[in-house]
């Protein structure tokens, strides 16, 4: 049973319902709308990004649906991204964050996790200045403030 998704730039994508429902947002929309063939507008997602998102959902269509656990183990690792996902995420930084934003908006937790793991891998090993450069972030700390934070977190350095 196909579902029609419409990107912000008015491009239409026909996908299987099972694939579309990897997005909890779409899944809820479909439940609310019921038996309707009308296309689903996604004003926050452009066609290029939607193409990538659909590609991910197609590949992972048979994955067990993750149940959100209140007692989630906070100690997650980022060095276990599977090969297909790693290749999938080999895009430029702008596209990486567009995928993350789309996954967040569409509520596709596994895709959001993979995207954030990828960003985490970029962050690892970088000094604060290198992180700022990588993501174009303005430093709004004074040197004194920054030194204060460094001192406060000294205990965690070799943890």
């Amino acid at each position, binding site marked *: 049973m196909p579902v029609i998704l419409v990107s912000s730039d008015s491009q239409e994508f026909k996908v299987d319902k099972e694939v579309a429902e990897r997005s909890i947002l779409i899944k809820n929309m479909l439940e609310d709308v019921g038996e309707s063939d009308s296309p689903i507008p996604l004003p926050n997602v452009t066609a290029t990004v939607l193409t990538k998102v659909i590609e991910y959902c197609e590949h992972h269509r*048979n994955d067990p649906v993750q149940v959100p656990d209140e007692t989630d183990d906070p100690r997650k690792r980022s060095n276990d991204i599977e090969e297909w996902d790693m290749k999938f995420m080999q895009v430029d930084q702008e596209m990486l964050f567009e995928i993350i934003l789309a996954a967040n908006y569409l509520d596709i937790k596994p895709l*959001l996790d993979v995207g954030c793991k990828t960003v985490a891998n970029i962050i690892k090993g970088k000094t*604060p200045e290198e992180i700022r450069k990588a993501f174009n972030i303005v430093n709004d700390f004074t040197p004194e403030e920054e030194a204060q934070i460094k001192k406060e977190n000294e*205990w965690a350095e070799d943890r």
Partner: protein
Amino acid sequence: MALRLKLKQFNKPHQSASSTSSQTTLALDIPEILMTIALFLNHHSLTNCARVCKDWKAVFQSQLYRVILAADFYRPGFARSFQNNISVVTSIEWIQESPTRLPVASKKSVWHPFHRKKASKPLASISHESFEQLQQSLSAGPTPSLKSLSVRVQNQHPNCILSLAAATAISLQISTTGRCPLSSSPRLYMGDILQSYPSLVHLTLKGVFTLSSRPLGEQAVPTPGPTAFLATAAATTAIGLSIPSPFSSSSVGPHTSSSSSTAHNAVVGVRSRVADHSSSIESLSLYQTDISQDELLELRVFLPELKSLLIEELPAHNEMIRTYYWTWSPTFIRSLRTAFPHMQSLRLGFMFEIIEENTIVEILQSFPLLTTVGFRNAKFGQRAMEALQQHCKLVVCLDISFAYGDDQFKAALNAELLHFLRTSTHLRELVAEGVIFHLEEPTGTGVIRTSWACTKLEKLVCGFQGTESTIFQHLSQFPMLSHLMIVHPSLIISSIDTTFALMEQSNKIEYLWFKQQRGQLLKKEMIEWLLKHLPKLKKLHVAGGAIEQKKAAKKWRREAQRLGVVVEIDSC
């Protein structure tokens, strides 16, 4: 001041010049996204991120306190920064370090007080100080974000954990190891637990102590009407702590009614008379923690919403101590049913008490809504299996490990179990240690006779009789399999391409356990192949094989760049 303005001016053009950085900035402006990224970072990266800018500090700083170890309180500056950030802590796991495993002072840090030779205090009291510091830190300020608390103490009464101010906790785990010096059979009361932690949904107790509903001699004070309320700050004052602010509404279940708190201030505040607070606890797990049958039934007042009950007897103190002395009767089962009408998951694992098949059948008949059923070390046989299929049609998780009986009994169980597996489409987990499935050889047409209907299987623990290729061909029916434990036979897994290749669709395996044939060395190619074809693998556990190979296996794992995989090798 002038310096700061200069820095800002310097950075501004850099940012506005490239409009292509907008998506990056947009994404990184969303706290939820930063939080998700933070979950994947270790402490060192988190400290770097906390220095990037103010918005980042607000998110990344709190993640440093996700898991607190007792030894953390000895790191210079920790206690103070922990207290400063207490309001954002979401999860605390406090494990009392055993005296033999002292954290080693690294050359970088200035841990003079903890240098082993200079330690003047006995180690037990040092840990106690650290626990007191945890206590103080939690009482210092409100902890609106704290959802999960797990504390393990050694040689102490579990009651001490109840003094930790964490009223917002949804999930609580109390573990004890060693023996309590003050009492040989320490007792914990559900009433007390709920006074300290009224928002609990999940409760786990581990250790050699006893759980009771309320102290002997206390009268049950009936709760006022259907909208029973939860203990408020006033109740905890009775124990000598104060929780300054009320919890956020999202963390409290539907039973809160702050308006009735004033009316009940008169009731609480007197330690010996505890009002019965019904709670929103949905799951209760007891590992070795004793509870009598009567006390369990008494708990119905405290746990009306109970959905999941697990009671497991484990070896404690490296000895086999019998904890549970239960006798089953239809009356008890009926009472259990009346006490906990919402029960969906029931898992029992008594090591000394072998539950009779009649009892199992009786239980299954009484709880038709069960989705998870576990009877380990019980007389789970053909009749029980029939009863399961007849009465508990919603079962998705089944654990019937180490079923007790003679060969004939087990053969009959096997046959019925197979029938179940060939007809059940919703089964997601099957744990059947001690069960060996005979797989028939493929016929001339290449069709495997024993095809199971439960293709959604995610977890499988069992043994097989058959050649390696038939086993793995059989396993290829389960594309969602993530947790696999092949208990029998001992495998060689030499011809990788033909065996695991047959599982081409089953690449979601996260946990793999199998027995290596005795005397066989692990081959590098096998580990490499496994790591390559099981991209989601998190833990590889091999029983058998030489223990000396653990180092080699870890080396191959590093070469394959799969450091996230935990490798365990135990020799049989």
